[in-house]
């Protein structure tokens, strides 16, 4: 579904991505693991058009996405839950969700809203509340719900577990798995490798701007280097 070929991304002089190549198949959950500063967020931002790549290619079902502005990439079926949630603090919960569906013109918006509320009943209770007053966990739910409102075929998630209590992390990951089972393909960026590998089909390990390892989730879980560096084994 998504083919990423040797991306090179720079921040001024800083060469942040040095030829990242990966692919995501239809219906898969693929996780991208890596330490702080490895380039995970940079990769996702490039996929959704926020950052330009100098060379390489990104193709969604054969069509290149490089050079397409971010507001058009959503139309192609990619929704991005950014790092740090980035909900619109001054808008209400409902308005945030409405913004998620901004680019859509089809009649399914009301139905998707009900689905998001079914997934996160807490959001329904708080729908008229200003989003900036939500708790961190609620904000993460809102960020995911907002992305789902775009009815994406591919969902990009940037560290959805960040700053959440363990119970909530588990709940969020279950939800992500549920979203995948309903047919949405997922590219999941995580530092919490154990959790990510537990729901992913495949994974990639990113180090200082390049992919150093890839394989099925099961293989990665067994890999001694992954165990040492990302699963906290000594």
């Amino acid at each position, binding site marked *: 579904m998504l083919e990423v070929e040797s991306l090179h991304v720079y921040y001024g002089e800083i060469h942040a991505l040095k030829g990242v190549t990966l692919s995501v198949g239809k219906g898969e959950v693929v996780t991208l693991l890596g330490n702080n500063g490895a380039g995970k967020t940079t990769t996702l931002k490039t996929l959704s058009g*926020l950052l330009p790549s100098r060379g390489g290619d990104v193709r969604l079902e054969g069509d290149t996405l490089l050079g397409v*502005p*971010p507001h058009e990439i959503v139309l192609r079926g990619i929704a991005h839950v*950014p790092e740090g949630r*980035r909900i619109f603090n001054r808008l209400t919960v409902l308005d945030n969700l409405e913004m998620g569906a901004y680019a859509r013109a089809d009649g399914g918006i009301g139905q998707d809203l009900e689905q998001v509320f079914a997934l996160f009943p807490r959001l329904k209770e708080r729908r008229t509340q200003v989003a*900036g*007053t939500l708790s*961190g966990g609620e904000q993460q739910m809102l960020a995911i719900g907002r992305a789902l409102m775009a009815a994406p075929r591919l969902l990009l998630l940037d560290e959805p577990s960040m700053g959440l209590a363990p119970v909530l992390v588990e709940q969020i990951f279950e939800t992500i798995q549920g979203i995948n089972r309903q047919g949405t393909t997922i590219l999941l960026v995580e530092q919490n490798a154990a959790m990510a590998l537990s729901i992913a089909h495949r994974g990639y390990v990113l180090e200082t701007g390049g992919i150093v390892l890839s394989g099925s989730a099961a293989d990665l879980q067994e890999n001694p280097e992954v165990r040492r560096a990302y699963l906290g084994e000594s």
Partner: protein
Amino acid sequence: MDLHLLIVIFPQVLLDGLILGFMYALIALGYTMVYGVLEFINFAHSEIFVVGAFVGVEILLMLKARGGLELLSPFLILLLLLVAGMAVSGLLAMAVERVAYRPLRGTPRLIPLISAIGVSFFLQDAIRLVESIWRNAFNLVYPTMDQLNHRFTLTETIDVSVKSVVVIVVALLMLWALHLLVNRTKIGKAIRAVAEDQATASLMGINVNRMISLTFLIGGAMGGAAGVLFGIQYSLINPYTGFIPGLKAFTAAVLGGIGNIPGAMVGGLVLGLLEAFAASYLSLLTHGAFGAEYKDIFAFSVLILILIFRPKGLLGEVVRERA
């Protein structure tokens, strides 16, 4: 001190203050909306306002030359002036952004500010040039429309002209329409989303540049409407008329909390009322020691006091933000 006189003139002063305040509020919206989205002070906005006033006077003078002022209903004429003034000012503001600000996006903050000051001078002199060629004069007077100048006598000491009522009603309608647009429509919410976080807004499928253009269009149109109302109310305009009201409207925007739309409305009203009361009451209350000419000093002293205690403005940042 003549307490009786103070009380008797109170309603009249209140009315003057409201008119001035609504005028400031309408202009202030242009500053505050653009600031909300780009964190940039559009110094050319005072000229966008003046252009609205000139569009109004030109239409009136042309109608007058053809005898149209007697033929048409004054309310129809007023509607025409407002629509035309809003359209021209709005489109001009949009064009200015496109030509003078957008190419400078991403440069250090002072650069677009200087560009805005340049645009401001450019527009002043452009109006002056065009009017000098066209009419051989650039100090113009709004032709009077008798029906609008009619005054109702409410009590012995208070009378209200039709045009004052019109100015207040039109301003209220505009503010209300803008409120609905920004808070109730999808486009309005998208503008607020862009104001908060451009990158994330673009991830929602919002075309950020288009929303920025729209912000200038709406802010400019409000300025243009204010220009027409200013002309109707105070009659005399020239290309430099915008400077003082512009500066005060900007102050009103800061007073209300820059970037905050209801804040601009409140700030405008507070400033207008302060100014009107100072103009009428200072001399009475100080037995002539301070005349009406001290009104600005008084009004701005109060403003400074308010800002010392509420540095973010009256309505600034009501929403508590969490990480």
